[in-house]
Every structure is written in structure tokens, then in C-alpha cells.
């Protein structure tokens, strides 16, 4: 186990370096699917929909066409609330390309009231106040501004305990 191979470069070795930029011209046209399609329509109308599996009784949120546990088609659409509870969160001070953020982004998993699941969204809460178990409330874009996107909810703020 002596003299293992592998040559670590030092910073000065790459003061001058070639970078090949490659910007692929790729476009994707993702279809929404049946379940998320209806979910997005709901967002445009300012409503949140889950879908119930009558076998395990879970109200799947975000909705899906099938229950992965029971492996059956899911059943009826259920409108759920736009309030919930913080399951977990982070205060993120960097972007994906390691740029620093002065004010953190606050991603959170939010358990939506009236559903059996959580989903990923953004919280806008004082970093000193936020905690797991906190009640939150969705803040929506105005009716005319909504496009049927997950970002039709701008973020979640502290709700009534």
C-alpha cells in the first residue's frame, strides 16, 4: 500500500486551463400526466388537490395516479387545505453553483392539512423563529397571475397555531 498512483494537481497547475463550453440545444416537452395535470389546474384556481387511495386510505399529496404501496389506481379527488405543518426545513446559504446568499433560502417539507403527505416548498419565515412542527399558511399569487405551476404558491408563512 505504498506509492499509490494518482497525481493531485495544485492550484497553480490550473491557473491557465482550457474549459470547453458545451451548451446542448436540448428542449424537453414534459407532459404533466393525469394526476399532476389536475393538480396544476387546481393551483391555477387557487386550490390544492390530493387523491385518495381507498385501499390504504391515504390522501396522496401531491396526487398520483397510482398508489405505490397498494399498487392500485387511486380513487377520488380530495380538496385539501392550503395550511400545514413544517416537517423539516433548512436555511440554505448557497446556490447550486456554490454562490453565497446573504439571506438564506428556506426549503421545507410541509405536511398539508387534510392530506397524508408532505411536499417540498419554500418558507418565508424569520430564520430565528422557524421550527419543525410550526403551522404554516400558503401565500398565493393573485388570480390573474397564476399559470398552473407549483410557483402559483409564492411561499409559506407562519400560520395560526
Amino acid at each position, binding site marked *: 500500500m505504498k506509492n499509490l498512483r494518482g497525481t493531485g494537481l495544485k492550484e497553480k497547475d490550473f491557473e491557465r486551463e482550457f474549459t470547453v463550453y458545451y451548451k446542448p440545444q436540448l428542449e424537453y416537452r414534459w407532459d404533466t400526466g393525469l394526476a399532476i395535470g389536475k393538480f396544476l389546474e387546481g393551483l391555477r384556481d387557487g386550490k390544492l388537490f390530493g387523491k385518495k387511495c381507498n385501499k390504504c386510505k391515504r390522501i396522496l399529496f401531491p396526487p398520483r395516479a397510482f398508489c405505490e404501496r397498494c399498487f392500485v389506481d387511486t380513487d377520488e379527488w380530495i380538496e385539501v387545505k392550503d395550511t400545514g405543518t413544517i416537517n423539516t426545513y433548512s436555511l440554505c446559504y448557497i446556490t447550486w453553483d456554490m454562490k453565497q446568499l446573504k439571506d438564506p433560502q428556506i426549503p421545507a417539507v410541509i405536511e398539508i392539512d387534510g392530506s397524508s403527505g408532505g411536499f417540498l416548498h419554500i418558507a418565508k419565515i424569520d430564520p430565528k423563529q422557524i421550527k419543525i412542527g410550526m403551522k404554516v399558511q400558503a401565500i398565493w399569487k393573485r388570480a390573474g397571475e397564476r399559470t398552473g405551476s407549483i*410557483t402559483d404558491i409564492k411561499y409559506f408563512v407562519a400560520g395560526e397555531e
Partner: protein
Amino acid sequence: MKGKAAIVSAGITKFVRRAKETPKELAWYAAKMALDNAGLSLDEVDAVIHGTAPDAFDGVHQKAEYLSDASGAFNKPYIRCYVGGGTGVMAPIYGWYYVASGIFDTVLVVCEEKMSSCRPHPQAAFLTIFDHTTERPLGPNLLWIFALEMNRYMQVNKIKLEDIAMVSVKNKSNAKNHPSALLGSEVTLKDIMESEVLAWPVHRLMVSPISDGAAAIIITNEEKAKKITDKPVWIQGAGWCLDTAFWTGRDLCYPQYVEYAAKMAYKMAGIKNPAKEISIAEPYDPFAYKELHHLEGLQLAPKGKAAELLMDGHFDKNGNLPSSPSGGLLGVGNPIAAAGMMKVCELFWQLRHEASGRQVPGNPKRGVAQAWGDLMQVGTVIVTGVDKP
């Protein structure tokens, strides 16, 4: 499984921040070292298995095919293995089932990763793992999910951040004695706690560094193993399991899929009480909390109690159950697939008393190595030991 499979040789490169070598050259070093240590020529290898992470890291489509010559696959049956971060332990499992099933006598398993080529940060290569409709419009980055999981794990189990930081202290210290190590050093709890907060509660020194490197092993059947070495390390059990990709709907405080994978491997190995019957653990530690999380999933600590055992010295190199004596990903480095394989190599060296300054005391009989990945959903587990299964 009727057939027996043994690891008879291992090879590894240095793990470095950025290697001058190409991915092929790194794979070649590790593959050649494994062959030389076994005294085998390539003619004696029936098939090659290659573990490597997303093509996007290298910007090379069909990366495994690109790497094939360097891994010794010229004109041979060749199999790529890729399950995200779980790859480094899954690739040896592929090797095990090809040999134990009798399809091949001898296989060379090579894991390689060169992360430094991807600019500005290889994290970008992972961004498409998030759901394109319900998550990507929110602008997620990969650190989010680890920070979310770590926070949940800490809150549910009431674990102190300082205790999690001690995993970094332990592993970076262990890595001082690993000849491949990128970050082996004595760091203090204060250093860890005062390092930059990337995504609270994740601090910079609680994250393994992106690295370049490769590692390889040779797996062969009982008859051939006897001819190659008098100290074969037997593969006693293997297990793997995948949890749902609807990750926000499960409780991140406990890796249920690791438990299922571990139980599959333990059952195969005839292990009833893993905490007593395992001598060395190499759980996957890309983040400090993950080592504790995984020790619980591996049934080597009660749920939520791994931190207490850590603080009692239970997982130290000289403790009752040394964990990551290699130095882990936090200390040796994290070239994804090669990092998991490094853990399998570590068990090989430890069980043969060839780990020099890292050697755990006593007479270790059996070890477990584990890796994890995808959307926090895959557990891959291998049990190796000195006794023939």
C-alpha cells in the same frame, strides 16, 4: 446461494481534489493494482463490472463504454452498475452474484469517478433528479435534501449538532493513516462547528469533499480463490433495497430501506445479532449525520441512539465496533462510486490485518460496508468475513 465468492485482491489510487490523470488512467491504475496484487493476468478474468456515476460528471455519454478499456474489458463480457451513491457497494454485489451463480469464475470490479471536470460544480449534474414539474421550478439544489433529512433526524431524536460534528472529527483523524486520503487531519470539534454553514444544519466540514479516484477488487470462486491467496475474504451476504421516489411522503428520520437491505444481507450471512456479530462497520458517510443514520439502519445502534454510542467511544478505532476506520468519505474523499468501493477494500485489508496504521485491534472476523444514494432512497449492503459462508 450455493456457490461461494471471495474477494482475493484490491487496488486503489490516491483520492485527490483534482487529478492530472484522465478517468481512464485512474481506472487503469486501480484495475492494474488489483490484478498485480492477485498475481493474475487479464486473461484469467472472465468478466468486468464497472461502477461509475452519472455521465454528466464527465460530460461523456456512455461513460462506462468510454472507460471499458481502462477497466480491462476489451473483448470481454462487461456490465455497468449505477445506483447513484449506492454504486460503490452495488458493483461488488454484481460481482458476487455473477461468481456465486457460477456464470463466471473470476470477475474484476472497478469503480471510478472523476468529479473535478464538471464546472462550476458537479452538484449541477444532480439537479435533474428533482421532479421536473413539482420541484424543479422551486430552484432546488442537492444540499437541500441532505439538510432537510439531517434536520429531521436531529429533531426527532433530539441529537445535538456537536455530537454529529464528532463524526467528522473521528473520520478525518482515522484518515490520517490512509494512503489514499485527501483530508486526513486532526480537526477539532471547534473547527467543525465554526466552519461555514452551507445549508443549516449542514456545515462545510460535515460534508465530504468532491474528489477524483478509483478502486477495484477481484472476486473469484472457491477453487480459484485457494490458488490465489491463503487469506480470501468471503462475501457472506449481500442486500439492497429501494424506497419510494416520493421522498417528501416518508419520514426522513430513519432509513428504512437500509434496514431492509441490511436484514437481507444478515439473513444470508446467518447473522442474528449484528451489533454483536459484526467486528467492523464501514457505513456510508458523505455527510457526518449519514454515518449515524446508517449505523441505525444497519441495526448497529438502536434507533436514534447512534450519537450516544459515538460519544461513548463505541465507534472509535479502538472501540467495541470501529466505524469507518478507513477515514470514510469525510476523510479519504468522495469520488462517488470509488468511495463506496474504498469501503469494501477497507474491510478486505482490515480482515487480512493489512491496514497498517488503521488496523483495528483484536481479530476482526467480519465486516459490513454500506452505501446509499439516488433520491435518498437506495441502500446497498455487503457483509464480508474471514470464515467461508
